[in-house]
């Protein structure tokens, strides 16, 4: 009986994961188009990284905390962050949880256990180590995930965080979304070794996964998560995936990359995952069409709705700098407003 239930749970998990992939792709395309129309200022597309992120997210539990980076919208959608929250941030409008302060793609969703993201890459990794320490110190369940791109593997923050997490044996899962490009630099010029292999040098477990196939990704991610959760120390999980779009909407990838994976092509993780799920008998064309059309409808509806929300009050610029407003900020606010 339990086996039957588990099987059913797993099936639903896969279908839900795939649904989040479609929703994420739909949102991505919508925002990119809107940016070209001048309706959105900037965006870092996540196309091509949906299977990697959602495959991992499927292996995580509610108690797990995430130090995300700026391309992690698919994971956020999968963990239940509402479209409204994401779109409010993209518009930087009055209802944005961070009052429109950061450029698009830098979300805050603390209520969903996302710890917020700055632009300087890999600076979130040492924080993940400290938070994992706090969790262990307080005997709280759950692991801490820190995600980053292949470029981050060159930073001192990566080195420090990997080293400290291993020395202190903390429950951190370092999640490298290797999309092969750090803006224009190919990963071969970023580092001489495979990223997952660096784990061994730090004294932690390393895992490599096919980040283009949600089903395969989930299997490997589950092993990595189980390892960290069991108290055996941190792990490094590298997912191989593609960046199907530019680094950001301000970037022209044709200048440096001749082999960009096209939307709907054989290497597109949505196509790869769709084929895998079909082979498993979990989805059919009818369901895919339904999920796609429903995603388009809901994204368009929410986009138009959130776009109408006005900009934040200018006064908000001067809030949340200190717990108590200083006389200097008060004075400067008086001069400017």
């Amino acid at each position, binding site marked *: 009986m339990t086996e039957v239930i588990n099987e059913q749970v797993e099936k639903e998990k896969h279908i839900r994961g795939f649904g989040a992939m479609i929703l994420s792709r739909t949102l991505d395309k919508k925002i990119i188009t809107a940016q070209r129309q001048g309706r959105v200022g900037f965006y870092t597309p996540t196309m091509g990284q949906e299977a990697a992120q959602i495959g991992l997210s499927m292996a995580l539990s509610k108690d797990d905390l995430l130090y995300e980076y700026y391309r992690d919208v698919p994971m956020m959608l999968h963990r239940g962050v509402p479209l409204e929250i994401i779109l409010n941030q993209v518009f930087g409008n009055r209802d944005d949880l961070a009052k429109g*302060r950061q450029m698009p793609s830098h979300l805050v969703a603390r209520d969903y256990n996302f710890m917020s993201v700055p632009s300087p890459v890999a600076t979130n990794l040492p924080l993940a180590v400290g938070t994992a320490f706090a969790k262990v110190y307080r005997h709280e369940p759950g692991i801490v995930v820190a995600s980053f791109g292949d470029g981050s593997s060159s930073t001192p923050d990566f080195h420090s965080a990997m080293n400290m997490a291993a*020395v202190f044996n903390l429950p951190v899962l370092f999640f490298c979304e290797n999309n092969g490009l750090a803006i224009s630099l190919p990963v071969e010029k970023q580092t001489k070794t495979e990223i997952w292999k660096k784990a061994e040098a730090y004294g932690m477990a390393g895992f490599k996964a096919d980040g283009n196939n949600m089903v395969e990704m989930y299997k490997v991610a589950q092993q990595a998560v189980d390892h960290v959760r069991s108290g055996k120390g941190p792990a490094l999980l590298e997912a191989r995936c593609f960046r199907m779009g530019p680094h950001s909407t301000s970037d022209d990838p044709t200048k440096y990359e001749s082999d960009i994976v096209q939307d709907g092509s054989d290497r597109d993780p949505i196509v790869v995952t769709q084929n895998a799920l079909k082979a498993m008998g979990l989805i059919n064309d009818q369901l895919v069409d339904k999920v796609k059309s429903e995603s388009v409808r809901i994204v368009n509806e929410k986009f138009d709705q959130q776009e109408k929300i006005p900009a934040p009050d200018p006064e908000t610029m001067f809030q949340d700098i200190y717990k108590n407003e200083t006389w200097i900020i008060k004075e400067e606010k008086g001069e400017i407003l």
Partner: protein
Amino acid sequence: MNMVQAINSTLDMKMAADDSIILLGEDIGKDGGVFRVTDGLQSKYGQQRVIDTPLTELGIVGMAIGMAVYGLKPVPEIQFQDFIYTAMDQIINQMAKMRYRTAGKITVPLVLRTPYGGGIRGGLYHSQSGESYFVHTAGLTVVTPSNPYDAKGLLSASLDLGDPVIFLEPKKLYRFQKMDVPDEDYKVQIGKARKVREGDSITIITYGSMVPTVAAVVEKNKVDADVIDLITLSPLDIDAISASVKKTGRVMIVHEAPRTLGMGAEISAMISERMIEYLYAPILRVTGPDTPFPYRLEDTYLPNEKRIMDAVDKLLKFR
């Protein structure tokens, strides 16, 4: 007790009362820190609360931020302020901006302790006064005590502030003087300067290691000076500065840090903007020069009696 003992006993007192306080840094546990500020605390509170970290300043600070955002109250130590620069990305882009970028949903209550300044023959890399780097960053509170009593009250206030505090310890004063320090918890209010002595002819604004130097020079030379110890470098106590400047009309600022864009620059700009009509003379700065900090010539570098008195004379004689 001296300043080292005052800081040590304050950490001890606060840690006994609050198990969310965690110390972390290089050589702070078994060794008690290179200045012995944390001596004995690891044997008392264990390796989980007084953590000897690997040698990585950015790692220490980043890890401390990660603790602070999740309910702990870490006190990272950077062995010498001169070594902090690899952690500046963490300090400026994570620590200082967390409250702002999350609209107050995530905050960073921590106290980053670090010895700074000259006076121990530390040369280029064990003598720097980098306070301006921190004061220039919105979101940081920057304080520096000049005696054991203030060290205790200021550290206690910093631990209770709820925001990141850069706690700069003038290493020259670590064992410079002994004072009676109350056993009980008390606070030296952040954002408030202290009047070191009263006078009517001239205002001398200073802080950190220069406080006893200035006090001794004006005492010895019988200068009728109002001497202000800023204690908090950010946010500055403009009320204390204003009251004194309006009384004397003659101002000088004394600090060890290099002159260009040092605290003196900001303070003199503030005075010029708000009360230039009260001034009888130009605002003068007696500071470290815009050179790196030299080893053998430390005494030449640091502001001394002659330089302070030359500035006093110039201010008093100005017509």
